[in-house]
């Protein structure tokens, strides 16, 4: 066998100067030839470390082989055995920390481009028009309520309907997808793709009811009277603020609000869409995770002259994916590291116009293992800003826990589950995704969803 190419087949993408003027997706995806060429690099390891690196254990060499052999139908079938949302995962999973991290090709060059191939095969299927629906299994007569239509809830729903259970998904917002529709921007994950993947789960037979807040419209206890089991996948939707002076000024948003206005409500299309958003000239985003990068890049596309990341630690500690940081840098986002916001100043109308910051330096590692940022005495300075996005994290959404007696909660407001079964302290109530684990990733949410589906199926089996 010929030696594999050292490097991945590159993916074509929109140039930075061009893409900051629109909300279209940045990478274009592989062509058939490119995908087959990349698939040919995989050496089909017998022990396949990549499978173990994948939180949902996709048969990675299997689907890659099918792509190489131009049997795309087979490739998508293998993929969907384990992952019902491949077009999404192919785009947003941190493959560099998972399957690609352990790929043996990494020893001689770049790992196999598993994520890009996953994306390719999912997009190929969508282009074929009618999506293949597996035959409907006989009904078991058992009913499961899924609360929240994010990646965790959608996975549970998909897995359980495939087994013949009746599933109803209750979603508080008017659109399903969770963070995938309200948080992650169009240029990273087109909303038509989320809609397509949700439609697939509905075609499998799951019922979706939007604009239904569990805890308000009905409680979990009420659902338990009508369903055999309840899965809670309500996510980490509560925005954190820094609680510093001036933070309620006009023009200061939580990342959730900023991104929800832009993505879910399509404020970037105002006035064609009715929801407005402040289009700042000088936008400061506080924090340096994926959410911060999404916010800073959104600000550029909304016309900001200056879009800045303000982060109290240094380059190495930034929690965002390297790829996202790179993209933000290419697009001209400024990085103000070792900088801590202290307070905001406003004009006479209450609109934020200046931010006071303090310079930091790194000290000894703290409990998280990261070097602790220490203030540099007297280094205070001010910078002009007219929009601020606070992206320092989200906590679990308290609405369901607060209205569900008997649910044991952790210190961070998360629902405590048995990691092996996703069971909560309440009988026939299961939980997974960010509400149980705290802020994590799409694939981890799907992973806990899969565990929950398996143990729900065990529990409600007739007899």
């Amino acid at each position, binding site marked *: 066998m010929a030696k594999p190419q050292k490097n991945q087949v590159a993916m074509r993408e929109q140039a930075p100067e061009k893409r900051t003027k629109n909300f279209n997706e940045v990478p274009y995806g592989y062509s058939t030839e490119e995908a087959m060429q990349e698939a040919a690099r995989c050496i089909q390891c017998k022990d396949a470390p990549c499978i173990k690196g994948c939180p949902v254990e996709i048969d990675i060499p299997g689907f890659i082989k099918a792509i190489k052999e131009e049997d795309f139908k087979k490739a998508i079938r293998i993929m969907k055995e384990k992952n019902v949302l491949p077009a999404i995962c192919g785009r947003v999973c941190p493959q560099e920390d998972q399957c690609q991290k352990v790929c043996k090709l990494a020893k001689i060059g770049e790992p196999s481009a598993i994520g890009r191939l996953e994306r390719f095969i999912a997009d190929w299927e969508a282009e074929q028009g009618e999506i293949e629906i597996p035959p409907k299994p006989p009904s078991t007569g058992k009913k499961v309520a899924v609360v929240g239509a994010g990646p965790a809830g959608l996975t549970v729903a998909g897995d359980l309907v495939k087994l013949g259970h009746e599933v109803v998904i209750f979603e508080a917002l008017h659109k399903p997808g969770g963070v995938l529709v309200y948080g992650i921007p169009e240029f990273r994950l087109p909303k038509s793709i989320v809609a397509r993947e949700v439609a697939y789960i509905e075609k499998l037979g799951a019922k979706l009811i939007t604009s239904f807040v569990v805890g308000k*419209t009905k409680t979990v206890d009420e659902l338990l009277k009508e369903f055999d089991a309840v899965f809670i996948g309500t996510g980490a939707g509560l925005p954190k603020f820094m609680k510093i002076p001036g933070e309620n000024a006009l023009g200061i948003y939580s990342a959730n609000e900023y991104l929800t206005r832009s993505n879910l409500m399509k404020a970037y299309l105002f006035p064609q869409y009715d929801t407005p958003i402040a289009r700042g000239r000088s936008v400061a985003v506080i924090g340096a995770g994926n959410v911060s990068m999404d916010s800073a890049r959104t600000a550029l596309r909304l016309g900001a002259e200056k879009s800045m990341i303000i982060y109290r630690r240094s380059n190495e500690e930034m929690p965002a994916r390297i790829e996202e940081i790179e993209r933000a840098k290419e697009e001209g986002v400024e990085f103000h590291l070792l900088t801590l916001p202290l307070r905001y100043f406003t004009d006479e109308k209450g609109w934020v116009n200046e931010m006071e910051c303090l310079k930091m330096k790194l000290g000894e590692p703290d409990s998280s293992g990261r070097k602790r940022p220490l203030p540099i005495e007297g280094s205070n300075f001010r910078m002009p800003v007219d929009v601020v996005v606070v992206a320092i994290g989200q906590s679990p959404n308290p609405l369901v826990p607060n209205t569900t007696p008997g649910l044991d909660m952790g210190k961070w407001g998360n629902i405590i589950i048995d990691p092996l079964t996703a069971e909560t302290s309440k009988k026939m109530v299961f939980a997974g995704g960010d509400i149980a684990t705290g802020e994590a990733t799409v694939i981890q949410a799907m992973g806990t969803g899969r565990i929950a589906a398996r143990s729900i199926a065990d529990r409600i089996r007739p007899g």
Partner: protein
Amino acid sequence: MKNYGKPANRIVYAKALSNDVKLFEIASPYIAQKALPGQFVVIRHREEGERIPLTIADLDRTKGTITIIFQEVGKTTKDLGTLKEGALLLDVLGPLGVPTEIERFGTVVCIGGGVGAAVIYPIAKALKSAGNRTIAIIGARTKELIILEDKFREITDELYLTTDDGSYGRKGFVSDELKRLIEQGCKIDRSWAIGPAVMMKAVANLTRPYGIRTIVSLNPIMIDGTGMCGGCRVQIGTETKFACVDGPEFDGHAVDFDLLMKRLSTYTREEKCALQSYEHERRLEPADKIKTSNSAL
């Protein structure tokens, strides 16, 4: 299991209470089962539309309907107002917010300014049923804008009406009427004030020195209504609260009304632009129709 389906949210009854105040009764069985006084819904009526919060002004559990009463102040409410009986609303979410604390307090005064009268009506009704001596003060700019007078008369022990221009009831503000009551020696155990922020602020300032507990219902700009965005944050004493999940009712003596009013003006420019282009389009509409019928000739 009931046959779950997305409720159609049909408008079963529509009525104009004044030139720009409309009442809709909406078939919304889940919400009608659950709603309590003081709670609200979030409505989105078309695909490109905003999500706006409106109070549940009344409900009928057996019919499975809720009533909303809204003033046409901008693009969304004006467009909503064009809907007729039988129309379907895309999304109605609720019941949201913490219900009003209803108890037997003794003598209570409910003060409603403008469309705030609609918001305070279910509260006054519940307070009366709980055995309180219930006094209502309802005010508006002018006679035409006084709403629900008959309904308030049915459920209150005393009803006072005010108009800014003196065209109906007593000339002046609702706070003037309240001041008169207090000065006449009326012993008030608790009061509710709901209406424009300036009015709630005036009432809270008036009752503070007398130590009359005053509950206000805040109306910041909202999106989700479920505590997810923080856009609705308000300052209560030294704390920041999310009005949609922690409120909308708060202790009026602790609210930072100036901040609320400033935050309500965040999108004044955009709202004006949206309204202008909307009204422009509506004016063009009939003309367009004529054009198409002409070309058909």
